[in-house]
């Protein structure tokens, strides 16, 4: 990117950004006072109210790759991008809260891999713990690199300065404040991100003459009428996204989205830090409500950029789709809200990276170090290990960021590949949770074979041996076939191997609830507006209703 995107930031804009940095660090140091035990450090002492964990849940996913990427998709694919929210996220978030959270939170596991250790065996656990840890560090590096690219393009900071400054701040507040530092900052980041995106959307809509003006302009754009519809034209693959409705419903809506939202520890960790079962179950559901509305400030700006920025959609240079939001910031925002918008982008990068790093340090400490290297040390020891793991993760993240700078395409591929990893994991989880008979060995081989299938299909796609209409279609198929592989292997191996005893599965599988589990509900949890099922149903109904204007 050349100097074409450079924003005209003045001293007050920088003051806004600096205030944000100072606040984020202050939150980290304030959270330090609350850390006595390893559970305080890694799971916020399981003490947080649902609105905090719920907003952190959605914020952990609001990395800038998500915001920049969804605005880019909005410009490239039009209204079909809403599928990533309304069918590709909300139902899975509700499912996590209503169906799966009782097993996660009720069994008091400290991480997603740990559930696998209790439900199946140590090999399954180690396989998942290592692949998760590696993925988180790599993705943290990608987030960091993306942050640095934006800082370089918008503010003119050299790449390495931006990488080191971003990493140092995230490092400071997580090392010092643990998960509470990360989660509290995520809540703050959520509001800053929204405050940054709303003015872009408002001024953009004024510029194109409101919603009807935008719709007219999109009809005249290269997307045409198809850019305004999410479902029309999905009877075939002749639509902007190149996806059949079957692929959207089962690939995106079921396998990919359930895999990501229900088994990704960087997300689930937020719910595990809630103060009781009711708050844990409400966490992803409360997160679903902002998720319903986020397309208003990502997809709509994408469409506005499409119709107002001439030549958007170039193969390279300043006019690539990924620059939709930065271009609108440059063209529409005066100093003041400009500072807020830049701060919002920076906040979203930090939110994404912090989620990866705090997920990593927990899995590394509890699931790798404590489980396989140093057991039976005092609790303080593991807090220290967690802090060291955080430093290591950020330093390695800086390393991967510099590697990513050399191979940005490859890093995109790696990220796509890890998204496919989640599908076999979800398959193993869901079958293991609902089929008591599924044996530990079947669990291990299901997960391993599903993962191998996902990788092989992906590599065959890269090598052009298998042909798909788009990368997206590949991920639908890769994820779907991996899921089927898990189910088939589980069905074949389970009758041949020995299951776990019933008493070992208490609280871990459906129909084996833990009778000794104490009731931890607080006064007021019985109120209707705190019912996870009711809140979840409303979210799903809203998602369906939202489709009506863009059908």
């Amino acid at each position, binding site marked *: 990117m050349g100097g074409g995107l450079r924003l005209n930031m003045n001293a007050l804009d920088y003051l806004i950004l600096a205030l944000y940095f100072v606040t984020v660090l202050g939150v980290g140091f304030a959270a330090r006072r609350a850390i006595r035990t390893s559970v305080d450090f890694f799971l916020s002492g399981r003490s947080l109210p649902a609105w905090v964990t719920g907003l952190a849940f959605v914020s952990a996913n609001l990395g800038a790759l998500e915001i920049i990427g969804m605005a880019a998709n909005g410009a490239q694919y039009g209204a079909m991008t809403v599928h990533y929210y309304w069918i590709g996220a909300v139902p899975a978030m509700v499912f996590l809260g209503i169906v799966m959270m009782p097993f996660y939170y009720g069994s008091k596991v400290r991480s997603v891999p740990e559930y696998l250790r209790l439900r199946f065996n140590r090999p399954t656990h180690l396989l998942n713990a290592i692949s998760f840890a590696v993925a988180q560090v790599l993705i943290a590096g990608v987030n960091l690199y993306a942050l640095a690219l934006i800082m370089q393009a918008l503010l003119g900071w050299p790449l390495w300065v931006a990488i080191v400054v971003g990493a140092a701040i995230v490092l400071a507040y997580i090392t010092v404040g643990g998960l509470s530092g990360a989660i509290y900052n995520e809540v703050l980041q959520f509001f800053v991100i929204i405050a940054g995106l709303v003015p872009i959307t408002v001024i953009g809509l004024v510029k194109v003459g409101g919603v009807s003006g935008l719709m007219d302009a999109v009809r005249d754009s290269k997307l045409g009428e198809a850019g305004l519809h999410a479902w029309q034209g999905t009877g075939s693959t002749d639509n902007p996204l190149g996806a059949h409705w079957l692929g959207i419903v089962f690939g995106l809506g079921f396998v990919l989205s359930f895999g990501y939202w229900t088994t990704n520890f960087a997300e689930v960790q937020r719910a595990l830090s809630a103060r009781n079962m009711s708050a844990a179950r409400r966490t992803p559901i409360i997160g679903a409500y902002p998720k319903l509305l986020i397309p208003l400030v990502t997809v709509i700006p994408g469409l506005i950029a499409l119709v107002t920025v001439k030549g958007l959609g170039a193969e390279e240079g300043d006019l690539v789709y990924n620059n939709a939001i930065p271009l609108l910031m440059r063209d529409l925002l005066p100093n003041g809200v400009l500072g807020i918008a830049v701060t919002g982008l920076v906040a979203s990068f930090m939110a994404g990276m912090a989620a990866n790093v705090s997920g990593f340090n927990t899995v590394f400490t509890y699931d790798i170090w404590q489980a396989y290297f140093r057991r039976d040390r005092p609790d303080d020891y593991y807090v220290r290990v967690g802090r060291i793991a955080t430093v290591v993760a950020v330093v390695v993240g800086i390393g991967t960021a510099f590697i990513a700078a050399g191979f940005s395409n490859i890093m995109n591929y790696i990220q796509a590949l890890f998204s496919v990893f989640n599908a076999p994991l979800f398959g193993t989880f869901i079958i293991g949770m609902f089929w008591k008979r599924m044996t530990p060995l079947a669990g291990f081989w299901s997960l391993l074979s599903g993962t191998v299938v996902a990788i092989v299909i992906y590599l065959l796609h890269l090598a052009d041996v298998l042909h798909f209409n788009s990368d997206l279609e590949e991920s639908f198929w890769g994820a779907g076939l991996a899921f089927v592989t898990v189910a088939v292997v589980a069905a074949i191996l389970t009758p041949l191997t020995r299951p776990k005893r019933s008493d070992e599965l208490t*609280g871990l599988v459906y129909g084996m609830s833990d009778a000794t589990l104490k009731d931890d509900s607080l006064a007021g949890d019985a109120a209707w507006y705190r019912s996870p099922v009711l809140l979840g149903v409303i979210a799903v109904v809203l998602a369906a209703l939202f489709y009506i204007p863009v059908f």
Partner: protein
Amino acid sequence: MADNADRYQHGEAHDPLVDETEDSREARSAAARLFDIRRVIGGLFVAYGLIVGLMGLFDSSAEIDKAQGVRINLWAGLVMLVFGLLMLLWQRLRPTEPPEPGAADER
């Protein structure tokens, strides 16, 4: 909350590693002493509202033209200010329950 350890019942998880950390959490967790994030959010947004709102008062016509004739700084500043004040008000009206006196410090 070590003094009422009898509240703790085994059987929530049947794993030594999980039980150990849960035990030490119940005994020593200081999480109840966490500060209130609403105050931080409220404070930051009040500051942002004042800065951006004041900039909005003195916006030149070039800046207003850039924003398509919308006095965006003024409006955004006002909205952020009100939001920040509401957060502070919420925190004032419904403070988090204070930590139990006996569990305050026992290091």
